[in-house]
C-alpha cells in the first residue's frame, strides 16, 4: 500500500479501469474464438457421418424424396470442396440458418429453438434461484456449526443430490409429489386448458404477468416447481461445499481476528465480514451450474414432458435428427460462453483484488 493514498489514487483507478476494459475485450475475443472452434467441431461431426450427410440429416425420408436430397445438396453446397462448404456453413449460421428439423416436420431448427428455449429458460431460472438459496442457507449453517452433527447431515444430503443422476432425482420427485401425494401437476408447461399468452417477451411466464393472466401464471409456477427442483437438488451441493470451505478459510483470516478483537459480536463478524467475502467464491461456480443445468434439462424435461429445448434434444436423439442435435450443441456452447463471460466480469467487479490475467 502506498503511504500517500491521495496522490496515487487517480492514476491507479485509471489503470484499473483500463485493465478491466482490456480484460473484458480479451475475454470477448476468447469467447468468439471458442465458439468458432465449437462450430468447427460440429462441422467435422456433420461430415463424418459417413458418405453424404444429407442421407443422415433426412433419415428415411431421403430415399423417397430424391428432389429433397438435391435441394439439400444445393443449399449446403455439398458438391463443392470442403473449405467452400465450411464458408457457407459459417455464413449460414451467422444468418441464423441452423438447418431443418426432421423431428418436427422439417421446420427450421431456429424456429424450434425460438419456441422451446423460453421454457427451458423458465426452468433454469427457478433452478438457479432454488440452488443458490438452498446452497447459501445450508452452506452458512454448515460453516456456523462445522464438524457438528448438523454439518454432517447437510453433507450427506448434498452428497446424495450431487451423486444422483438427474433422471433418478426427477423420477423420485415425480413418483412422490405427483402420484403419491397428488400435490403438483406434471406434463406441459401449464394447464393445457389455459391459452398460452400472446408472445411479448416470448417467455410465457413473463407474458402472462404483463397481460394480467394470473391463472396461467399460477399454473405455470406449479408446473415449473418439480422440474427445477430436480435440477437444483443436483447443483446446490456445490454451492454448499464451496461456501462452507471459503467461510471457514475466511473465519481464520487476520481481518476476522481484528474484527473480533474490536469486540464485534460473533454474528456480525460471521455475516458482515465472513459471508460477504465468501459469496465471491460462489460466482466462480456459475460455469459448473450452467453446464449441469443444460445437461440436466435433457432428462428432466423429458420425464416431466416439459416442452423446452431439452425435450427437443431428447426427441431429436431418438429420431436421429442431426441438424437439431448439432444446432443445439452450438446453442448450448453459446450459453456457456456467455455465462462464463458474465461470471468473469462479475468476478472482477465484485473483487478488485483479482489479478487480471
Amino acid at each position, binding site marked *: 500500500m502506498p503511504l500517500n493514498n491521495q496522490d496515487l489514487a487517480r492514476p491507479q483507478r485509471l489503470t484499473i479501469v483500463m485493465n478491466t476494459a482490456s480484460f473484458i475485450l480479451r475475454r470477448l475475443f476468447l469467447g468468439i474464438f471458442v465458439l468458432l472452434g465449437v462450430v468447427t467441431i460440429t462441422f467435422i461431426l456433420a461430415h463424418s457421418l459417413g458418405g453424404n450427410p444429407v442421407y443422415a440429416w433426412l433419415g428415411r425420408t431421403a430415399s423417397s424424396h430424391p428432389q429433397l436430397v438435391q435441394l439439400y445438396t444445393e443449399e449446403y453446397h455439398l458438391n463443392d470442396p470442403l473449405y467452400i462448404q465450411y464458408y457457407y456453413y459459417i455464413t449460414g449460421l451467422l444468418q441464423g440458418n441452423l438447418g431443418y428439423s426432421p423431428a418436427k416436420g422439417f421446420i427450421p431448427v431456429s424456429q424450434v429453438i425460438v419456441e422451446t428455449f423460453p421454457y427451458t429458460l423458465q426452468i433454469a431460472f427457478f433452478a438457479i434461484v432454488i440452488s443458490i438459496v438452498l446452497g447459501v442457507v445450508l452452506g452458512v449453517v454448515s460453516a456456523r456449526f462445522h464438524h457438528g452433527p448438523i454439518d454432517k447431515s447437510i453433507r450427506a444430503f448434498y452428497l446424495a443430490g450431487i451423486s444422483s*443422476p438427474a*433422471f*433418478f432425482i426427477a423420477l423420485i420427485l415425480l413418483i412422490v409429489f405427483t402420484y403419491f401425494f397428488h400435490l403438483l401437476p406434471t406434463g406441459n408447461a401449464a394447464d393445457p386448458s389455459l391459452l398460452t399468452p400472446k408472445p411479448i417477451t416470448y417467455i410465457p411466464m413473463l407474458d402472462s404477468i404483463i397481460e394480467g393472466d394470473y391463472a396461467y401464471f399460477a399454473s405455470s409456477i406449479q408446473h415449473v416447481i418439480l422440474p427445477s427442483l430436480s435440477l437444483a437438488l443436483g447443483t446446490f451441493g456445490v454451492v454448499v461445499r464451496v461456501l462452507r470451505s471459503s467461510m471457514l478459510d475466511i473465519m481464520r483470516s487476520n481481518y476476522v481476528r481484528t474484527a473480533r478483537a474490536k469486540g464485534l459480536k460473533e454474528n456480525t463478524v460471521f455475516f458482515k465480514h465472513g459471508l460477504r467475502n465468501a459469496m465471491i467464491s460462489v460466482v466462480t461456480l456459475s460455469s459448473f451450474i450452467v453446464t449441469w443445468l443444460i445437461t440436466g434439462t435433457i432428462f428432466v424435461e423429458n420425464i416431466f414432458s416439459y416442452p423446452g429445448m431439452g425435450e427437443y434434444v431428447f426427441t431429436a436423439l431418438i429420431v436421429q435428427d442431426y441438424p437439431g442435435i448439432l444446432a443445439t450443441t452450438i446453442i448450448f456452447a453459446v450459453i456457456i460462453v456467455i455465462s462464463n463471460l458474465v461470471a468473469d466480469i462479475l468476478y472482477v467487479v465484485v473483487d478488485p483484488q483479482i489479478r487480471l490475467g
Partner: protein
Amino acid sequence: MLSPDTRSDEEGPVPVASSNPSSAVRLREILSSIKADKGAMVGFVIVAIFVIVALAEFVAQSTGFLLAPYNPIKTNVGPQYAAPSLAHLMGTDNLGRDVFSRIITATPNDLGVSFTVIIFALCIGAIVGSYAAFHGGILDEALMRVTDIFFAIPALVLAMSIALALGPGITNMTVALMIIWWPPYARLARGEALKIAHQNYIEAARLSGAGRSKIILRHVLPNISLTLLVYASLDIGTVILVYAGLSYLGLGIKPPYPDWGQMVSAYQDFMLSYPWLPFFPGLIIALGVIGFSLLGDGLKNTLTS
C-alpha cells in the same frame, strides 16, 4: 522455454524427488489415514464392493460361469413384476428377469467404461500437459485454446453428437468419452508441471544434460502424478454419471444386455405400479458415485494435508 507466468511458489515446501518414501510405506500411510476418516472409509468399502463384484463378474462372464443368482438375459426366470423378496432381492421386471442379476451383470460394463476413460485421460493428459508446459510457445498456446473449446460444450452433449457420428454402442461411447475427457487433465498437468519447472532438481537434471523427454518422464511425471491421481479419483464418479446418462438415452449397450442407465429408462414406464423397478438401478448409480466421491475426498484430504 517457459511461459512468463511461471512462478515457482517461493514459500511452499520444496518437494524433493529423493525424499519420497518408498511406495509401500506411502500406501500404508494413505490406508491408515483413510481408516481414521469415517467418510473415506465408507467410500472405500462401497468402492471395494463395486470393484470386487465387477472383477468377479468379468471373470465369470469371460469363463462362461454365472455369478448372478439368475440368468440376466433369459426371460421368465421368475414371475413378472415380482416385488422385492428373498428369492428376487430387487424384484423382477416386465419380462420376468431378475433385476438384481441384471444389475450385477452390468457392473463390469459401467465400471469398465469409467476406468478406461479415466486411465486414458490421465495418461494422455499428463504427457500432453507436461510437454506443453516445458515446450511453451505455439504448442502450449494451442493446447490451452483447444481445452477452452472443450470446456464450452457439456461432456454429455458433446458425447451425444459424437455418438451420432459413430453410432451407439458401448465401445463407441467409450471412444467418445475418451475424446472429450483428457483436456482438463492436460490443463491440470500443465499447471502442476509449471509449478515445479523451476525447482532445483529439474535444473540439476537439465544441467546434467538430460533431454526434455527424459526430464518429463523421470522427474516431472512422478512429481505431478499424485495431484492428477487425486483429481482422477474424484472424477470417476462423474464418468459413471455421464455414461449412465448416455446409456439412459439409449446410446450405450444394446438390449437385452443390461446397463444401469438403460435399465432406469426401460423400467420408467412401469414406475407408477412398480416404483422399485427404476428405483434400484438408479440407486446403484448414485451409490457408486457416492462411494467414489467419498473416497476421492478422503484421498484429497490425506494427500494435501
